[in-house]
């Protein structure tokens, strides 16, 4: 089994933390993994993308080929659409519906319509949920929770264990906040 995932968002939204959690879970599960990251200049408030490839057989390319991703997981709606050519026909888009407005003419209507036109899409009002539950720093983990059932090659339980593992150096309070976010996300995902 093989899963290609595109993680996208705006620099600083925590997409590399999502990659770290999935990467930890995959390594513990003995899966092969390749994860291409973005560092340097583009991280400063610009568009960021990380390709994550998971497989039980050998993976050659660090980059996800066009038309082969099973899932686009995005912290920002326009950033989800930017990587659509990587998605396969039956692939899913799971994205925050809250635009990150740091550019002059953000095409809100274009983004809304394009997302609505996709067959396999789940949009999450991340801003509202994190406000409602007072978990401002865990929006990325909440999104991962929504996607948990769609990743397939890893179980939600394996992901949860990795959340504990990754955040434990930051203290129990941080771990609990992220577990809460993950569970909220899972519930949201199941309702879709």
């Amino acid at each position, binding site marked *: 089994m093989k899963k290609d995932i595109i993680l996208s968002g705006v620099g600083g939204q925590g997409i590399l933390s999502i*990659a770290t959690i999935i990467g930890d879970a995959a390594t513990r599960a003995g899966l092969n993994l390749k994860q291409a990251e973005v560092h340097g200049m583009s991280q400063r408030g610009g568009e960021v993308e990380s390709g994550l490839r998971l497989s039980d057989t050998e993976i*050659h*390319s660090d980059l996800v080929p066009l038309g082969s991703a099973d899932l686009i997981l995005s912290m920002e709606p326009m950033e989800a659409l*930017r990587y659509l050519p990587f998605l396969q026909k039956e692939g899913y888009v799971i994205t925050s519906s809250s635009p990150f407005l740091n550019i002059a003419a953000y095409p809100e209507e274009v983004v809304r319509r394009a997302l609505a036109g996709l067959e396999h899409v789940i949009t999450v009002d991340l801003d509202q949920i994190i406000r409602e539950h007072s978990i401002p720093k865990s929006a990325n983990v909440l999104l991962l929770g929504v996607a948990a059932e769609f990743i397939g090659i890893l179980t939600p339980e394996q992901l949860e264990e990795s959340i504990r593992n990754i955040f434990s150096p930051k203290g129990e309070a941080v771990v609990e906040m992220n577990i809460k976010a993950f569970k909220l996300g899972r519930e949201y995902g199941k309702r879709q």
Partner: protein
Amino acid sequence: MQQIKLLLGDEAIAEGALQSGIKGVYAYPGTPSTEITEYIQHSLLSEENGIHCTWSSNEKTAMEAALGMSYAGCRSLVCMKHVGMNVAADAFVNAAMTGANGGLVVVAADDPSMHSSQNEQDSRFYGKFAMIPVLEPSTQQEAYEMVQYAFTLSEQEKLPVLLRITTRLAHSRAAVNIRTERPDIARKTVADDPSSWVLLPANAKKKNMALTAKQSHLERLSGENAFFKLTLSEQGNGKGIITCGTGYNYVMENKALEAGFHVLKIAQYPVPEEKVKDFAAQCTEILVVEDGQPFLEEQVRSIVGGGYPLRGRLTGELPRTGELNPDHVATALGMKSAPFFKIPDGIVPRPPALCQGCGHRDVYIALNKVLADYPASKVFADIGCYTLGALPPFCAIDTCVDMGASITMAKGAADAGLFPAVAVIGDSTFTHSGMTGLLDAVNDHSNITVIISDNLTTAMTGGQDSAGTNKFEAICLALGVEKEHVKVVVPLPKNMDEITATIRKEIEYQGVSVIIPRRECMQTLARKKRKALSKRNQEGTK
């Protein structure tokens, strides 16, 4: 014993270097090479074994210090981004003449597609230029193994060895099998051979002859190492692929062997000519797949001759510039299928921007205000976060070329009568390559205004220590800038009147003035706060 770690290519190189028993790593931060040194800095082994791992002022000082360590009999690693090779080049090329004593490995991280750079030069040319072995790994595991091989090769051949990687390998993570026992690497005796190390013409001529004579031997090694791989397809269709580095991964991703292509993977240079000749004889045509400039393709062309059907970046089957990807290779192999989805019309780019609250913002706001009154003014900027001042809403800079060029280009323009000539340079870039240019300006009494925008760190690469922190006023005074024309301001909106008045006054001064706006980088400040918070949280749970 073995251990599996999920590592960036950069981190795999660092692990390999630690496994090789290095006594020091010397580097200046530069994307995509920075994480090699950072990994060594954070490893327990560095402290236990007293491994040198603080940052150097620039790539040249790094290269020379590493050569000194090699001279003294220890293994040393030098890391830099590709354009850093230009800075280190004098030391690098001449290190091939002196040769190495303790193993000396130079890592150059190239950046095809210029994700975070101003050009896409290919460091393999430097290796050929210096006539030393160049290694090119394809995977993170190979990077780990290859560094260890590189140190052995360096000591065996008594030459520095260049390890060339690209952004994709440097910044991609995969599981790497790490050995946990550390071998005992014996320290060599100090080099005691002035005829090798004093490059007077009489000595250098002999060394040059010896290095040149060694090339066929080095070439043979390129075809005999563990990373060289010839795979003949069982369904052979007569077509061949010669590839290297990450290019090999894209060839394999597209199942080229199953499609009937013979595959020759080259991992070491100089190009093993005999192996290429043999391979060409087994094929009817060859595609060269390499990330970077057509370094391998040009050499294969000269080996197989003009009439041989050879394709690659030079013939247009693969793009002439930019980073390679699996889709380019699929197209070149005739396997491409169009993706199902397109980017919807109306999606706009989101370029990087200076962080909210960043001190560079206040500097540019002030500078734009003042320069609005000087329509002939030009702002010569430099390499760092503040290069983003080129983009809206600031559009505040006119040039950005290489590290240090702000001051020297402003000087040259001022020499030509341009006024006002303003230089904007960061703190780390100033100590990297700005100081000598400032001395030129002082000696010529050039009419320039230099702004050293000091955020107390090397910010663009992630907040590494900056060599000149707390020393800038002293450095400027020592270089001869007059005391009353070295001004420090705090770049905050509330100080805008003071900052603009200072800039205006110093522009009007006929000579060299230096203004130092100083305020800590928002990113390093936030990181410090986060660290303090998580420390408090942890203590709370104990």
